[in-house]
């Protein structure tokens, strides 16, 4: 192959070159962008859990309290005892575990959602400290203090230093946090120390009436695993917690989205592949049309002594260079499109069992959702795959066209003119 001749053909026949290049570029860009979009959607579904540093939330389905007075455990939670927690901690694949007590408090003057957490852990609600807006977050050893969710504080006109009441006991607000990024997962109105929450729960008559509650129980566990082990760990935790276990994993969010995910996945792959096919057809058309224009040149190659393989090498080389340039252009185009898509957002529904608000309260039955930015990124694997598929198509097109072109006979070309 003569590079100078390749360059001359590509640069001095700009219309043909642009037609071939654009065909490949659009196909490759479509393939990469659609797969990146589908992947971003999947990532978005994991976002609420990722935001709290866990990939499994474990609960045990509870029961309806005798009365909605004072502290009760939400229907979706029941006490998880110490020995169960310790068993889960030692399961293979579990990297970290955080315990929490999720509770509702029905007071005569209102209702609130509370979460007792261990502020020293890097998994679970302890990570909400990143959303601190005023005051300070909870610290190890805190008792009788709370941090308020920013929207709840605004609604109740609460500020740092104000007092609130939980289970009839005065609690002082030490900070305000914005938990909106985590959505309804691990979301509460007030965050207290795990010790306080355990004390509220184990002393609450309406908890004790329906549960065997102990002072070191939890009712919600945040578990971090290697993502690839999450399904198997989730299954093992389910076995520990029994038939009433409620496991929330990234897959749970995908299941809530259900058909949407399937559609995006299948549509993205099918349209992406169709894009590559169309790209190859466009390339074939552009190259074949170009070769028809160049029949005289190809006849000349043979006449002045180019062997068949010389012609094939030259013409296939031209097509491959065109394919390569088209792929690079497609990659760049995909980069621009995916960058633009980052400004879009997607609403991810949240499984009901993670919804903090009781369904019987106004607005509680509405589908909870979290809106997250779509983190569309070109995966190196997708980029390499699309480039490889494109290159393979380019090789097939170039060899097919070049081999046909090499059969052109000089004398026949000139006789036909």
């Amino acid at each position, binding site marked *: 192959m*003569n590079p*100078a*001749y390749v360059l*001359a*053909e590509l640069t*001095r*026949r700009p219309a043909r070159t642009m037609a071939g290049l654009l065909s490949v570029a659009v196909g490759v860009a479509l393939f990469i962008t659609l797969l990146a979009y589908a992947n971003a959607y999947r990532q978005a579904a994991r976002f609420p859990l990722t935001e709290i540093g866990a990939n499994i939330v474990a609960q045990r389905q509870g029961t309806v309290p005798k009365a909605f007075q004072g502290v009760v455990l939400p229907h979706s939670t029941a006490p998880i005892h110490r020995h169960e927690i310790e068993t889960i901690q030692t399961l293979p694949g579990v990297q970290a575990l955080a315990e929490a007590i999720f509770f509702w408090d029905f007071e005569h003057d209102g209702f609130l959602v509370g979460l007792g957490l261990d502020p020293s852990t890097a998994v679970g609600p302890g990570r909400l400290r990143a959303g601190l807006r005023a005051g300070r977050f909870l610290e190890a050893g805190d008792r009788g203090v709370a941090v308020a969710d920013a929207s709840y504080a605004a609604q109740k006109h609460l500020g740092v230093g104000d007092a609130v009441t939980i289970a009839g006991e005065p609690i002082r607000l030490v900070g305000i946090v914005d938990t909106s990024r985590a959505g309804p997962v691990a979301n509460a109105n007030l965050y207290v120390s795990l010790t306080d929450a355990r004390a509220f729960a184990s002393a609450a008559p309406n908890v004790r009436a329906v549960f065997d509650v102990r002072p070191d129980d939890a009712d919600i566990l945040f578990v971090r695993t290697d993502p690839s082990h999450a399904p198997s760990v989730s299954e093992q935790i389910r076995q520990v917690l029994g038939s009433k276990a409620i496991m929330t994993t990234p897959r749970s969010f995908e299941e809530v989205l259900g058909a949407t995910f399937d559609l995006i996945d299948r549509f993205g792959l099918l349209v992406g592949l169709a894009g590559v096919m169309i790209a190859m057809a466009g390339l074939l058309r552009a190259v074949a049309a170009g070769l028809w224009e160049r029949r*005289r*040149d190809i*006849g*000349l*190659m*043979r*006449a*002045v*002594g*180019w*062997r*068949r*393989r*010389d012609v094939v090498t*030259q013409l296939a080389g031209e097509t491959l260079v065109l394919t390569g340039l088209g792929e690079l252009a497609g990659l760049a185009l995909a980069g621009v499109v995916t960058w633009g898509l980052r400004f879009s957002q997607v609403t991810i529904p949240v499984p009901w069992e993670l919804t903090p608000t009781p369904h019987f309260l106004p607005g509680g039955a509405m589908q909870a959702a979290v809106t997250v930015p779509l983190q569309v990124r070109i995966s190196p694997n997708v980029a390499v795959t699309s480039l490889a598929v494109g290159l393979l198509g380019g090789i097939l097109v170039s060899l097919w066209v070049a081999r046909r072109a090499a059969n052109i*006979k*000089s*004398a026949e070309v*000139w006789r036909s*003119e």
Partner: protein
Amino acid sequence: MSELLKAEGVSKSFARVVAVREVDLHLEEGESLAIVGRSGSGKSTLLNLLAGLDSVDAGHIFYGGQDITGMSEDDLALWRRQHIGLVFQAFHLIPTLSALENAAFPLYPDRMRAVDRRRVALERLTQVGLAQRASHRPAHLSGGEQQRVAIARALVHRPSLILADEPTGNLDTQTGEEILALFRRLRDENGIALVVITHDEKVAAAADRIIRMADGRII
């Protein structure tokens, strides 16, 4: 002088039309031969057969004593690259390449350094008086200049034989005479044998020998 090219009983038909009928001819080294005839007389077909661009239906063609009629297309291409220079009425230059690149075109498949290829091509362009137009593409060259580039291309690998099909057919009288003078000079300087197909008696008169064709036969 020894015999360079010989055709024995060469025939060629297209469908039911006989284009060349049992032609015998021979050419000595360094000799120039004009093949004259009207359009459709079979002279261009004969040139294609002599160049191995078409296959014979019957007969044999020998080059330097070797029968080329049984060679594969790739072997014929290699043979042309080593021994034959072709010049056409329509020049057949590659429009995207400069005069220098066109002159070097037959050398592209060779394992030759680009700088050497350019040097050889420039020498040939100099030989045909076109070195100063080396960077121009065919669209920016006159007909005479384009034919000079085509001649430089035919000479680039130092052939023993040039086969020219109506080399002055697309040129005005004065330019045609210049091209003929160039052919004479090249033959005198390099000892290259020449077969010229023409219907122009003035062109034919410049050759050492003339043969005439009609209805596919030598008359």
